[in-house]
């Protein structure tokens, strides 16, 4: 009896040891009680009771900014009344805050960002946060290392490069500006479908295509600087000069030149390819973009990808506001319809 008991103990012990040995580090349950509760409405904003859907559907609240853009005071409430009503030093009353549904600040008038004219992202820290791997294998890396997007640099580079009226060079400029000469001596290029029908893919990187693109880009830039002279000045000049000299086509080009620099293409999702969004803007005499309206509201309401593209478009124009356009021609640009053509933007 006693022996049997001892044996049993021994065997159980062995079994236990076996089991423990097998599983050195049991994990805690991978699905702990993580409860996603309800959506939250925006914090209090008393007077705004307009259809809450607008907050989602129309990414564009009507903004009626005071004509002279108030200088950026860090002091609270430089903004419209909508915000003054709010308990700004908020007493801890968050339950209410979250409970009360409201639309977005319709009249919040966030003061046309005083500074962001065509030059995008001036205030942002120069350090691009796309932290890339420092380097690949030291030996090969100089050639292998994928060219980094380096957004800040790219922006500057683009800004410096005279904006050529045709989109081609711009697309090339988009390809990564990394040491092109370092790549020249790489292994021979490989077959790759450059003639992809897919516009997004045209933008994608293939290690061997990049080599080619960089060379093209170099050439284009070099040529651009020499040949184009200073089209920038040419474009801006009419703003101050004789209004009669500005043709409709020139007006269009001036708008396009400003807006495209502010438009971050929403290429994160595959499905956005081929999406076009038509947005109507009303513009104040000082160039401030006041109102935006996506023409296809029905699609805006049902198609999340379309909405993402529409939002990116409207964000771009807001970011470029105020637009620099010849005042004498205000009648012509007080209402602008912009067709954001993602398909073309991606295919160049």
């Amino acid at each position, binding site marked *: 009896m006693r022996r049997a008991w001892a044996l049993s103990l021994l065997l159980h012990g062995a079994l236990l040891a076996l089991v423990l040995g097998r599983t050195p580090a*049991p994990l805690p349950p991978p699905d702990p*009680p993580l409860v996603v509760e309800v*959506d939250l409405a925006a914090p209090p904003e008393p007077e705004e009771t307009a259809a809450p859907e607008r907050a989602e559907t129309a990414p564009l609240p009507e903004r009626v900014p005071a004509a002279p853009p108030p200088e950026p005071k860090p002091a609270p409430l430089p903004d419209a009344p909508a915000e003054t009503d709010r308990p700004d030093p908020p007493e801890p009353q968050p339950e209410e805050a979250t409970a009360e549904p409201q639309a977005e600040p319709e009249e919040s008038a966030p003061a046309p960002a005083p500074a962001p004219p065509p030059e995008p992202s001036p205030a*942002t820290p120069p350090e691009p946060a796309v932290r890339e791997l420092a380097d690949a294998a030291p030996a090969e890396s100089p050639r292998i290392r994928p060219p980094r997007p380096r957004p800040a640099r790219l922006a500057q580079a683009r800004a410096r490069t005279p904006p050529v009226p045709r989109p081609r060079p711009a697309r090339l400029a988009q390809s990564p500006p990394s040491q092109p000469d370092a790549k020249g001596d790489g292994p021979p290029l490989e077959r790759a479908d450059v003639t992809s029908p897919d516009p997004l893919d045209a933008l994608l990187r293939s290690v061997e295509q990049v080599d080619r693109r960089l060379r093209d880009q170099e050439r284009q830039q070099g040529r651009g600087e020499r040949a184009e002279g200073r089209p920038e000045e040419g474009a801006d000049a009419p703003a101050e000069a004789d209004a009669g000299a500005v043709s409709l086509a020139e007006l269009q080009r001036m708008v396009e030149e400003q807006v495209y620099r502010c438009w971050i293409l929403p290429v994160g999702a595959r499905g956005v390819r081929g999406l076009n969004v038509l947005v109507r803007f009303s513009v104040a005499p000082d160039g401030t973009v006041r109102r935006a309206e996506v023409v296809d509201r029905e699609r805006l309401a049902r198609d999340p990808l379309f909405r993402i593209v529409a939002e990116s478009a409207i964000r771009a124009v807001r970011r470029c506001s105020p637009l620099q356009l010849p005042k004498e021609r205000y009648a012509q640009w*007080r209402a602008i319809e912009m067709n954001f053509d993602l398909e073309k933007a991606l295919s160049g």
Partner: protein
Amino acid sequence: MIRERWSRRELLAAGAAVAAVGLSRPAWGQLRVDITRGRVEPMPIAVSPFAGDRPSEVELGRRIAEVVAADLDGSGWFRTIDPRAYIQSPDELRTVPRFAEWQQIGAQALISGVVRGEGADGMAVEFRLWDVFAGSQMIGLRLVLARDIWRRAAHRIADAVYERLTGESGYFDTRIAYIAETGPPGQRIKRLAIMDQDGYDNRYLTDGSELVLTPRFTPDGRGLAYLAYRGLVPGIYLRDLETGRDRPLGRFAGMNFAPRFAPDGNSLLLTIAVGGNSDIYEYEPARDRLVRLTDHPAIDTSPSYAPDGQRIVFNSNRGGSPQLYVMDRDGGNVRRISFGDGLYGSPVWSPRGDVIAFTKIRGGFFHIGVMRPDGGEERLLTRSFLDEAPSFAPNGRLILFHRQDPLNDRIRLMTIDLTGYRLRELPTATDASDPDWSPLIP
């Protein structure tokens, strides 16, 4: 989260408003402009530390925001703005932000939040995503969870933001399994390891006493299949990640490599070599049913299911050199899809079905590349001395693989996104190989 249904009345009202506008103003489209270019760059986003009433909550709020920011930065689609530039405090952000101030620092979107302790070890995290230029809230969500898994709350928040702003599902609340390697060459100790997608919470699941290879998550993310040599015959084991228990899935005469699950989780693809000839088999553990799918004197290996489970891509040298082939699930209709020069291997089908990733060897270099399932549009995303073992993130936008450095022999984990621009190292404590990316954690 997204409420966009318009009532009939609202639609009519909107239509009337548009009509009225049309009448009272000069016609729209007086100036019509086509915007046919733009910029490909990360979206600048501000991630404010989350507010809290007690110091512990404030501290948690700061750390959560840091993890959210690191996730978004790491995706390559966002560039978080240095918090030192923020003008509004976390407490001020308990109400609607002063958007003009955020525009000034270049933010296009803003994340704010509040952390509240609940009970002894619970907490509630509320966060909001704001469109700074539209001045509107894009997301408002509240998560309730145990305090000690606050990192998961942060990953979930990052997933929600990523999804809302890019239109793709997120991948931050996920794990990565890999083989941790230590010791000198020839005496490598290999352990099964698992960690969060961002490298945190690293754990070893085996003790290194046996050789382990090729971890693969089950499609539900709750289990991990791997190959282990216990004795001379390798077997496939399934580790239950909740209980920590191992269950043998099967032992097979002959070598076998790289088990891979069908999307429904009910069967596995194996490579079994008999008499030196490798062929592909499908194994159904529940019924202990083994079906041979290829029967060819050449080496057939590295099978991977399409996400619909109806086709299989694999590697074979039946054409004279290792190339990629696709066949139906029953083994019929075999066709070659890779035709470039060079050698192809390790194909894996994207969970989205749109591309197949592979390793390519050519001109002394290894590449990770992708091609369409019909073989078109091949693109090579990386190039190095040795890149191997691609595995997709659950949203199909990133590929995880290992890279060996010829100088010091270190093996590291790397990710590259499908655009090919964003190559990053995923730091691990030891050398790491054979990675597999989990689905989103349930």
